[in-house]
């Protein structure tokens, strides 16, 4: 009896353990859906063992190679042997290796496939003669360099690519050929576009939030509902609606022509360019700015502005010194929210952005989804983007203080 009493009197688990047990499902959920994918993304961006696993001896033979002239016979022999082994073991692997090497050097996919297929029957005394006999490209430095480069199990090359850099035989890291440079441009464009959209959202959202937060309660609900209506509509629908409005023969241009503001043949290009991206993305993201601002503004007593006026402040000074500083937490929260969301947008810029409105996320999506897949490069771009956002967050923390952020 006494032992049962003891068990009954004390909880089964200590409070701390019980609390842990309660948050465990959430913890596991976050781990599985957030931490694990992030870790996997990071791993994938630096760890690419495919070629090293398939051609270990070739990669070993290329260690210490001077990259100035074709490598020694050992490398040729290792490659010839290993290609045949890989093909015998699993033919699909040859294609995988070829595709991986193709990222470093165009043409490797076909070269590797052809070589693997024809090696057995190739004439020639040495491996070198056989390989060069199949394709003279094996006598060049570039193809071997591709194997050496892609053969690194742990690699920074995807980060180099993501920054428009490349390794060249004998030259080390150099900038990518000019007509292939794209990611730095898109990264900086994404940054500027996101900042611009954040600023625009602030400019448009601030007065709206102010209006709502100081309206009569029943009108407040109506106005809030109007702000939230876009949330109930699919992103795709909202984006395509903007195309209907903004296109050459669209409503806006028709109205401008109708009012005689522009000539019929001088219609404005409002969509499929940066204007379209700005308009559509600002529209989509505006609620994310308005809501935090609204929640902060609602907590600022109206009497503060009266107090400022009674103390002699002009309306502008009262706003700037008294009202604005108190909304900073909302501005920070809304701004960070809009900025981070904007950085990851890709459907809207893809549809309305045209050529000049393409953002880095479109490139990431392309590498993730369309052939030829390059998930490693997409991961590296993703990590860079994440690092960029993280850096911004730190800057924000230094300037404003994250603890002051108020989301709602």
């Amino acid at each position, binding site marked *: 009896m006494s032992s049962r009493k003891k068990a009954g009197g004390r909880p089964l688990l200590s409070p701390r353990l019980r609390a842990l047990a309660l948050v465990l499902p959430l913890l596991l959920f976050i781990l599985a859906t957030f931490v694990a994918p992030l870790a996997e993304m990071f791993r994938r961006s630096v760890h690419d063992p495919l070629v090293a696993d398939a051609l270990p001896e070739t990669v070993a033979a290329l260690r210490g190679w001077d990259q100035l002239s074709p490598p020694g016979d050992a490398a040729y022999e290792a490659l010839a042997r290993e290609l045949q082994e890989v093909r015998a073991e699993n033919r*699909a692997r*040859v294609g995988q290796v070829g595709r991986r090497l193709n990222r470093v050097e165009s043409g490797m996919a076909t070269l590797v496939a052809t070589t693997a297929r024809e090696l057995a029957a190739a004439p020639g005394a040495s491996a070198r003669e056989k390989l060069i006999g199949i394709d003279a490209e094996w006598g060049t430095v570039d193809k071997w360099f591709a194997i050496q480069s892609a053969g690194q199990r742990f690699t920074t090359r995807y980060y180099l690519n993501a920054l428009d850099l490349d390794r060249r035989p004998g030259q080390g890291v150099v900038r990518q050929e000019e007509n292939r440079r794209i990611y730095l441009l898109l990264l900086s464009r994404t940054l500027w576009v996101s900042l611009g959209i954040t600023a625009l959202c602030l400019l448009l959202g601030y007065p709206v939030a102010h209006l709502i937060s100081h309206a009569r309660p029943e009108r407040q609900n109506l106005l809030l509902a109007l702000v939230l209506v876009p949330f109930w509509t699919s992103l795709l629908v909202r984006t395509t609606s903007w195309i209907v409005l903004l296109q050459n023969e*669209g409503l806006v241009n028709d109205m401008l022509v109708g009012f005689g503001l522009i000539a019929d043949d001088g219609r404005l290009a409002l969509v499929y360019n940066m204007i379209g991206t700005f308009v559509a993305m600002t529209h989509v993201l505006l609620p994310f700015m308005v809501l935090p601002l609204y929640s902060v503004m609602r907590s600022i007593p109206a009497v503060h502005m009266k107090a400022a006026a009674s103390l002699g402040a002009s309306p502008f000074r009262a706003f700037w010194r008294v009202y604005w500083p108190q909304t900073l937490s909302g501005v920070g929260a809304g701004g960070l929210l809009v900025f981070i969301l904007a950085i990851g947008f890709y459907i809207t810029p893809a549809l309305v952005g045209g*050529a000049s409105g*393409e953002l880095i996320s479109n490139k990431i999506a392309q590498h993730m989804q369309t052939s*030829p*897949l390059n998930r490693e490069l997409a991961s590296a771009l993703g990590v860079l983007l994440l690092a960029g956002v993280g850096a911004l967050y730190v800057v924000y923390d230094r300037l404003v203080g994250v603890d002051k952020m108020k989301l709602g």
Partner: protein
Amino acid sequence: MRNPQQTLTRRTAGTRWALRSLAIAFVALLAASGCAREEEVPSLTIVSFGGSYGRASTKAWFEPFEAATGIRVDVVDYNGGLAQIRAQVEAGHVFWDVVDMDLADAVAGCDEGLLERTDKAALAPADDGTPAVEDYPEESVTECSVGNLRYATVVAFNTEKFPGEKPSTLNDYFDLEKFPGRRGMRRFAQENLEFALMADGVPPSEVYATLDTPEGVDRAFRKLDTIKEDVVWWETGAQPPQMLADGEVLMSTAWNGRIFNAQVLENQPFEIIWDGNVAGVGQHGIVAGTPHLEAAMDYVVFASSPENQAAISRYISYGPLRFSAYEYVSTHEETGIDIRPHLPPPPSDSSNSLFTDWKWWSDNADEMNERFSSWLAR
């Protein structure tokens, strides 16, 4: 004060109840999946693109196949790409059997071991006895897949916008002086480089040889430069007919099936310029490791016979691939019109029509995509 003893009992009971229901659910799940495996009616999961093409496939291939073999066909829609196939193969749990895919994915999927190799000897020969492999145009059958149709990327225009002379060649598409106005073009390197070179005077047969040299690629981009300012870029297949109807663009590259639908179903006054069209092919591939390999192969063989392959043209304006299948092409089922003028020109007529070289693209897509994006962004 509540009696702690009671609380404890209640809590334990609650936990026990939760555990028991969890266990029951788990067992039920196992049983359900077990049942699914031990079905009696053989069935095949075929994955396709849905929409009007999915409906056409059902009428042309899936229903006749069911009728002929008694194998039930479950249709799943997807948007292309290898991501889901890769996931199934890597997890060792394959529940898609046959996938309708484009050639790029078929080649890549084959290289990466995601698709089963298909035995071309099993395919039905042409009516005159020609072996199947010789009945297909080059490069339209891969190690792992069998071609099922031919579509084309073409230039189309809205006749209402051309009261006078109408464009009739690919050159007209690139000729801003003759036909000033905006052009729709897909935001993608592939096809555009080919269009540019053909418009610049390179015969279709030499397009890829030209692209194989750096000068050739430069030449293609230089040609694209001449219209870049006037291009509206499109991303999805539905955009070109919409932009043409809205008057947003004067002419646009487009997939021929979309233009056909707009012509016959929406009575849009569109016209297709077949000159310099770039043809692509669709493929049937079998997912590596499918438990229904035999039935899947049966389906691929069934759908690739000349008569069955031609059936797709009764429902949508895509042409068969096999030379011998063209005999069976006649009218569009729904409208009764002669479908032949609406199909991409048959492979035998390659005078001003280009067949996409997937080998070249598999070697060069990495670099060309980067160059194209870089060119676009400038």
